[in-house]
């Protein structure tokens, strides 16, 4: 059972000095760079805890397994992970837990081999929120498309599924065109997909993206085609990434949760368990947006989303 493993491990450590590793989907992108600031901050705030962040160079499940494998070998005390593909991490996370390593995941509410998963918010609510925005901008009618980072990314799919369901129930004059489009978390692929989509659906009115790169790539395609005013683009992204498109109107609104806070929160959860504490429903993580986290099974939900448009984008310098 995870709890016994968790309580045993720290005893072996000298003086509560812990090493907590955070593993992200891939390195180099702004989203996870921002997460790294939170991870580092945690290390500063808790001087006897060493924190660092690693990740594969490409968004590739096998490479992420490799990274975790190496961390197990180094004997870290806890691993906080943002899985690229939750299922493919199960075996290696099991191995980690068998070694007594505490495992916390993020954006993977179905992950099995973890102590806890931390979600910024309830996914269905977030997805519906986007659809409401989109519908308003489109005048509740017309064709729209959706994009996800990958069809296997659980949260992305929950968002768009909830959004689509909400549209079917509430906006009968809107039509979803084609299947979910995949961007592989890559702005360039999103851009290429975007160009194809614009060609294939000349009457397109709206688009909802999921990975931080989706609206960036799509926005570029829209901007190049000069369709800023015809097409509404909303989705998760980061101000630094989508800012220039928000300003030109190619992207209309983005939502996000602050990855640095999520990273901080995961580390906090991990440290609690290492210290032998048990996180409970409704507790305050001491992180903005996670003041009262709701526990469902092994998943904690916060209320940490933010809407950003051309007006307030400059308030978020990351």
């Amino acid at each position: 059972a995870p709890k016994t493993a968790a309580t045993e491990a720290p005893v072996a450590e000298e003086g509560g000095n812990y090493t907590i590793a955070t593993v992200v989907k891939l390195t180099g992108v702004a989203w996870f760079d921002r997460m790294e600031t939170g991870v580092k901050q945690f290390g500063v705030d808790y001087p006897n805890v060493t924190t660092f962040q690693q990740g594969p160079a490409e968004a590739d499940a096998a490479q992420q397994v490799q990274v975790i494998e190496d961390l197990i070998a180094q004997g870290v005390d806890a691993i906080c992970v943002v899985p690229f593909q939750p299922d493919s991490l199960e075996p290696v996370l099991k191995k980690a837990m068998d070694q007594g390593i505490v495992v916390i995941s993020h954006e993977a509410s179905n992950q099995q081999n973890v102590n806890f998963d931390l979600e910024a918010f309830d996914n269905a609510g977030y997805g519906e929120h986007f659809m409401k925005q989109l519908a308003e901008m489109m005048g509740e009618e017309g064709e729209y498309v959706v994009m996800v980072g990958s069809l296997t990314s659980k949260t992305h799919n929950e968002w768009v599924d909830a959004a689509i369901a909400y549209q079917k129930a509430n906006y009968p004059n809107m039509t979803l065109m084609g299947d979910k489009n995949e961007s592989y978390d890559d702005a360039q692929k999103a851009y290429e997909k975007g160009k194809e989509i614009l060609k294939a659906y000349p009457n397109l009115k709206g688009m909802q993206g999921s990975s931080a790169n989706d609206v960036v790539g799509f926005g570029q395609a829209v901007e190049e085609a000069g369709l800023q005013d015809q097409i509404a683009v909303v989705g998760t992204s980061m101000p630094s990434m989508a800012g220039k498109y928000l300003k030109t109107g190619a992207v209309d609104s983005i939502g996000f949760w602050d990855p640095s806070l999520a990273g901080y929160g995961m580390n906090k959860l991990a440290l609690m368990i290492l210290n032998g504490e048990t996180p409970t429903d409704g507790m305050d993580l001491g992180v903005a947006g996670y003041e009262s986290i709701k526990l469902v099974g092994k998943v904690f939900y916060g209320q940490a989303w933010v809407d950003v448009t051309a007006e307030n984008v400059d308030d978020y310098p990351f």
Partner: protein
Amino acid sequence: MSDYNNHLDNNDNGNGKNSFQERFNATRFLKIQDWNLMRLFLITVGIFIVMSLLMPTKFPRVLNFQSMGFQMSEIGILGIAMALAMITGGIDLSLNSVANLTGILCSVILTRLAGPNVAEPQVGLAVFLAIVIGLVIGIVCGLLNGFLIAYVGIPAMLATLGSMTLFTGFAFVITKGTGFFGIEAFQKIGNGYVAGIPIPLIIFAAVAVIMIVVMNNSSFGLKLYLLGSNPKASIFSGIDNRKVLLRTYALSGMLAALAGIVILGRTNSANPDYGASYVLQALLIAVLGGVNVNGGFGKILGLVLAVFSLQFLSTGLNMLLFRSPGANFFKMFSWGALIILFMIINVVSERRKQRASIKKPKPA
């Protein structure tokens, strides 16, 4: 005899290309074979010692060996598969795609036959079937490569580039681009231990031992080496080059499939585009292991050493640089540096040896 001409066409494309000079280059590689092994062995041990000294509490421990054991297997198996193709004088760029395609089809079989509510014996049967069918798929893919190379006459690099695209394409068609997953029982293959030794490592060791025997003691192995060193002479010795090539690529495909099975077990998932960089890594390992790019030579043992040295290097660097998110990148850099350095050392030491032999007093 079309392949005779084919080889003529490939090898004989200059008047001078078949002259002494060219052949003596191959000789040069042969003579360093054993030196190569020795040097490689020293490098491996050297890296190990340096890493152990730098991180005495982290590097030389059982946990770390186990972890490395899990990581080495698939790339080691792919390296051997690549070496086979290279010994014939060819190359196999499709290995990775074969591995992925196999993983995907195995996962289909497993999830169909051994869904959540299936009894224990049937799960065992499903696992067995998945492995057998997986290997057969690898063989079929390899046969296609062999056919294109030996019977149609497409240079190996292009044939396997085409088939790589094709196999990856099929993988995308089957999965529609998403990942496929394995079943609980199958994860043991990639994550279990026997007597504390990771199962993937055991699989790799078994493959290595079998391949050492095949290459050194079987008629197929002998023919393969001979064909690779001089395809024309092997035709003139009554070896059916086309058959040998066909079998080699089939074997190489089968090994790729095995790697795919290990990956499926280890990550519990199969994707059409897993580990795209594996092909280049396999090539790197083969070259570092002493396989001659022009064919004909290469020892499986050298390959095993190369896998170990690169794994020590990667894991060691990862530990050293663990605070830096760029550990992976430094690994990339050091692999490239290592391979170039290694090749340069080989060339320079060989040149020095040649010069020395000229200076030697004339034998009576």
